[in-house]
């Protein structure tokens, strides 16, 4: 409904169960239902209408009361009274009545005043929300039970319950505001939305809000300069790291399946066939230590070649230079590998380092006829070793490496998101980390 005076949208509040009042946040006037008012109003001399009724749009009557000390506007058809700003306080003073409306027990039947359909639905949902708590004691039952509120399809989690106290009052209010007034406030969040419940006596007032970025506020009010930087995390502040996090994990899963699938496929089609096995022996006294093996054939597509070296190094080292030479062309693949194996005991404890065995991968070997040329260097008197070659061997470490590469950023994003939430809930009644000092003991 629009304000009859300034046409700003009226805001509805429930003063007690079933009793509603609409107030204008712009001109601070208040609209009451005549049936709800308990204060006597003897109206005298209806005067020309000042405003139209916000409900039926017909002209309202303007009449005086309390010997002309107060002027009220009434719609007899709708049974509504309009009080300008400040008139409520005057009426209280003149009538000596503090509570202008009837106090009803919870559950008492009360017809809602004329209101927009959306507002009525909103009230219905609000009434389904948790009931007001008693203002007794300093204990906070919400701290342990963590209630939730469902409103307009969203589930709001309890954030904090507190008891704010009025320390100063400025401006006019449609209720009696006194210094020392206390209320129990319960905040529920569903970022970027927040719902607050203010409980005073038997009254419970709900209000809904939405978090705005500082830049939006700055722009809306055309403020000069730039807003101050943010400090901490506000209760309803949206978590910037939540956006797209589920998508990140979806793509992680998809890519992980693709990697594992590639490995399974490569294992299925890869032959892993042993194409060569040969042995070599070199003595320290040999003038020429290079050796060549038998010619072997590699068939199929270009793939890797896994070479396994099995030596007899014992308290010795060896470096084996190898060349995989194409028997039909002048091409060669040149590589080498070091092995060493030492052991002993020190202070009664045995130790060993190195290995007699080594596996290396020769990448991207095209099909063809090859032979192996080896040229070892060693400090051993006699070095014997065998070489086994298998082609097209899928490496398990590849999908594992890929999974690690996929996991790292996804995990980082999740940790950032979690850290943001921990900071948010640290100031709530439900911090993620206990702050009672148990951790320090």
């Amino acid at each position: 409904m629009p304000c009859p005076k300034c046409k700003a949208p009226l805001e509805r509040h429930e003063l007690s169960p079933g009793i509603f009042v609409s107030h204008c946040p712009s001109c601070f006037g208040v609209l009451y239902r005549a049936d709800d008012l308990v204060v006597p109003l003897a109206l005298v001399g209806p005067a020309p209408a000042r405003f139209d009724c916000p409900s039926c749009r017909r002209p309202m009557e303007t009449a005086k009361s309390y010997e002309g000390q107060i002027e009220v506007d009434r719609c007899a058809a709708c049974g509504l009274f309009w009080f300008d700003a400040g008139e409520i306080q005057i009426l209280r003073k003149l009538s000596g009545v503090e509570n202008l409306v009837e106090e009803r027990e919870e559950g008492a039947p009360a017809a809602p005043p004329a209101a927009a359909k959306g507002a009525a639905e909103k009230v219905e949902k609000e009434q389904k929300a948790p009931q007001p708590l008693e203002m007794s004691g300093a204990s906070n039952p919400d701290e342990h039970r963590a209630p939730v509120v469902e409103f307009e399809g969203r589930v709001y989690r309890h954030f904090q319950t507190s008891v704010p106290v009025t320390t100063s009052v400025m401006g006019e209010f449609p209720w009696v505001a006194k210094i020392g007034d206390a209320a129990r406030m319960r905040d529920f969040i569903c970022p970027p939305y927040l719902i607050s419940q203010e409980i005073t006596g038997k009254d419970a007032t709900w209000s809904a809000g939405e978090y705005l970025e500082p830049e939006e506020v700055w722009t809306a009010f055309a403020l000069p300069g730039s807003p101050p930087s943010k400090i901490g995390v506000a209760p309803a502040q949206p978590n910037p790291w939540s956006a797209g996090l589920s998508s990140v994990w979806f793509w992680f899963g998809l890519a992980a399946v693709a990697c594992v699938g590639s490995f399974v496929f490569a294992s299925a089609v890869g032959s892993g066939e042993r194409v060569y096995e040969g042995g070599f022996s070199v003595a320290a006294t040999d003038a020429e230590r290079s050796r060549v093996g038998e010619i072997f054939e590699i068939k199929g597509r270009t793939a890797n070649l896994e070479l396994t070296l099995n030596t007899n190094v014992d308290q010795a080292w060896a470096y084996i230079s190898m060349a995989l030479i194409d028997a039909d062309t002048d091409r060669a693949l040149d590589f080498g590998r070091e092995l060493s194996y030492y052991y002993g005991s020190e202070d009664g404890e045995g130790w060993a380092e190195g290995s007699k065995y080594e596996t290396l991968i020769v990448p991207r070997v095209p099909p063809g006829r090859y032979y192996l040329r080896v040229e070892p260097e060693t400090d051993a008197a006699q070095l014997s070793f065998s070489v086994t070659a298998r082609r097209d061997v899928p490496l398990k470490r590849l999908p594992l490496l890929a999974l690690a590469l996929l996991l790292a950023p996804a995990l980082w994003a999740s940790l950032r998101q979690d850290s943001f939430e921990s900071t948010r809930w640290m100031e709530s009644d439900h911090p993620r980390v206990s702050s009672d000092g148990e951790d320090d003991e």
Partner: protein
Amino acid sequence: MSRWYRWYALSVAGACAWTLWTGWWITPVERLTGVPKSVRDNPGSYRSHYSGYHRYYGGK
């Protein structure tokens, strides 16, 4: 983040599949040409790129 990660994940998965299929690996290998035919009969006629290696004598 999600858009970046989507391309990143696809790239990693693609690289993994390509590496598995082509047999690529990080082992340092010299691909040489012009190797004499006589190597098979006379292994000493070719010297490996990696020959002449001298290491520190290990062990405790």
